């Protein structure tokens, strides 16, 4: 499909609302913003930007990162790889550099899925291109930060992530707003290509302002023996967040796992899911969600589609309601289209069981301490196969949210 065809399809979908989630008036957000100048090092960022970046796992000290990408509003102010075998640049630059990138553009996500994907095509403001070359294995993660400084701005990014055969790529992405920004729209298309025997771990931490609307659109294509592990943490307020990342296990023994940790305060509306198409023998998927509301509304979805024999999948969703207001709606779906498949789900939504609090109190904790320990335990999703320092980042982001819970 030519780029002209892609744009035509996008134009046709310009007004197409998303199948789920509150509709957004895209015209309410500005697409004009001043350009920001490039920087050489992340340490050159101002103190307040650094602080916000750290809150989403993006470190100004680059020693324990293998590369960095920083986009402020519509300007890519820094992109560099510190290790060989990795490529980090803006996706627009990569499109110019590599003709073959057209073969990956809008192949894991449909350009005409809805008006948000359409806007990402028609009014794209960069995004990142991250690639691990064949066989490259880098322990330290690549980090990417998408940062918004202007109130009322729409940021429309298109990211492409490619792990070539036999490579291993760990990514941490933080999305956040500058202090003082209240409203905004973030549309982030992310397309992942995990080739044979490759592995991608993708940890995304969101820390938005209270009136920001967020529409990530993610697709991942996983080939033979490929592993795609996605961790998503949103513990801070957001006006509306709707995402339904979808992975396609197209190769034998492809393995996908989505871990999602959500906390919605009053005024936050989150509709977050995960969907995996299991299309090849031996492919596996596991979706794990922990959702907490203290007044906000959460819809948590999971959908496994088993299309061939010999696949396995499991969905797990646990929700905790900590206040009179607020709701959690868990929608687990299993769709089996072949024999000899193994798919299951478990979902539980409720409040903290009083008996558990009393149990901890009998060991000497007061009621607040006991509640805190139980919430900490509830959010402690076992995350395997990611480097220790990424686990620490996830724990840090969760802990910062927990402080607001109590």
């Amino acid at each position, binding site marked *: 499909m030519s780029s002209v065809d892609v744009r035509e399809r996008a134009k046709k979908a310009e007004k197409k609302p998303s199948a789920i989630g509150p509709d957004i008036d895209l015209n309410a957000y500005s697409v004009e913003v001043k350009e920001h100048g490039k920087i050489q090092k992340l340490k050159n960022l101002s103190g307040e930007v650094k602080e916000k970046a750290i809150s989403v796992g993006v470190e100004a000290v680059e020693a324990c990162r293998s590369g960095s990408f920083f986009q402020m509003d519509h300007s890519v102010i820094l992109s560099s790889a510190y290790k060989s075998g990795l490529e980090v640049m803006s996706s627009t630059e990569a499109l110019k550099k590599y003709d073959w990138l057209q073969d990956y553009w809008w192949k894991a996500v449909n350009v005409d899925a809805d008006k948000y994907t359409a806007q990402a095509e028609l009014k794209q403001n960069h995004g990142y291109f991250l690639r691990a070359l064949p066989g490259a294995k880098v322990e330290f993660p690549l980090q990417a930060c998408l940062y918004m400084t202007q109130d009322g701005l729409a940021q429309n990014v298109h990211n492409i992530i490619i792990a070539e055969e036999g490579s291993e790529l760990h990514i941490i992405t933080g999305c956040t707003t500058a202090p003082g920004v209240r409203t905004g729209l973030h549309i982030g298309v992310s397309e992942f290509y995990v080739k044979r025997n490759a592995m991608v771990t993708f940890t995304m931490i969101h820390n938005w302002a209270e009136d920001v609307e967020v529409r990530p659109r993610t697709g991942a294509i996983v080939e033979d023996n490929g592993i795609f592990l996605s961790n998503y943490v949103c513990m801070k307020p957001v006006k509306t967040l709707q995402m339904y990342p979808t992975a396609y296990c197209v190769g034998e023994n492809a393995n996908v796992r989505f871990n999602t940790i959500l906390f919605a305060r009053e005024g936050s509306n989150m509709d977050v899911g995960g969907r995996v198409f299991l299309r090849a023998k031996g492919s596996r998927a596991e979706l794990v969600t922990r959702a907490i509301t203290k007044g906000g509304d959460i819809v948590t979805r999971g959908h496994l589609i088993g299309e061939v024999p010999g696949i396995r999948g499991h969905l797990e969703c646990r929700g905790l309601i900590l206040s009179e207001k607020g709701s959690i709606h868990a929608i687990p779906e299993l769709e089996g289209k072949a024999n000899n498949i193994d798919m299951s789900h478990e979902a539980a939504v409720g409040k903290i069981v009083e008996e558990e609090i009393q149990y901890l109190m*009998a*060991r000497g904790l007061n009621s607040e301490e006991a509640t805190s320990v139980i919430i900490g335990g509830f959010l402690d999703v076992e995350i395997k196969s990611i480097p220790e320092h990424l686990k620490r980042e996830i724990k840090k982001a969760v802990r910062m949210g927990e402080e607001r819970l109590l």
Partner: protein
Amino acid sequence: MIEVKNLTVSIEDKRVLKDVNLHIAQGETIVLLGPNGSGKTSLLKTIIGIPEYKVESGMILFSGKDITKLTIDERARLGIGIAFQRPPAVRGVKLKDMLRICMEKRGDFKEEKINEFAQKLNLFNCLDRDINLGFSGGEIKRSELLQLLAQNPDFIMLDEPDSGVDLVSINLVGKVINELLEKEKIARERTKAGLIITHAGFILDYVNTDRGCIMLNGTIICSGNPRDLLEDIRSKGYEGCIRCLR
């Protein structure tokens, strides 16, 4: 050490304890016998302070202090410990975390003690597991005792520590209960006291108790030598107690 005076307790308007009186001195261990639903567990839960158990009248004194209105954690920090009969599972909270909490709250946290205690109860393999989640009946009982070892309370209440425990483990359980209650010391040198509920009485083969009490319909109806009482119950059942009351 602990004195229960004229205690009457109800749950949701149902009376579960009626005018209970019980005194347990420092160094003493009492075994509480009685049929299902007689109020044994209710008494333990009232002493630890579970709020659903509403004290209508009477009081509980611990070391001379009225604790009737204290919260569970205040009682625990004063030195009252309990091994629950059916404790809840707490997801994400590891047994190891609980041991740390138990020690910290009694002001004596030592990392190396965790392994030492776990070894005593053969629970190494459970330390990194979510507490009580998927534990076998025997593991739950041993894990409760493990937490008490870490907590080191002065007054120890054990709710059926022998039920669901296999013959090998009951030896371990008995040993640890004796250690908790300082049974190696002579009675007047002990600083601990205990109250044990048993249904089948197996634990009495491993732990020496000083006195037995029989509870029926929410009241302690008699007390005496624990072995004699158990023998009577084994031969005549609790029917014998009911006849005795008439």
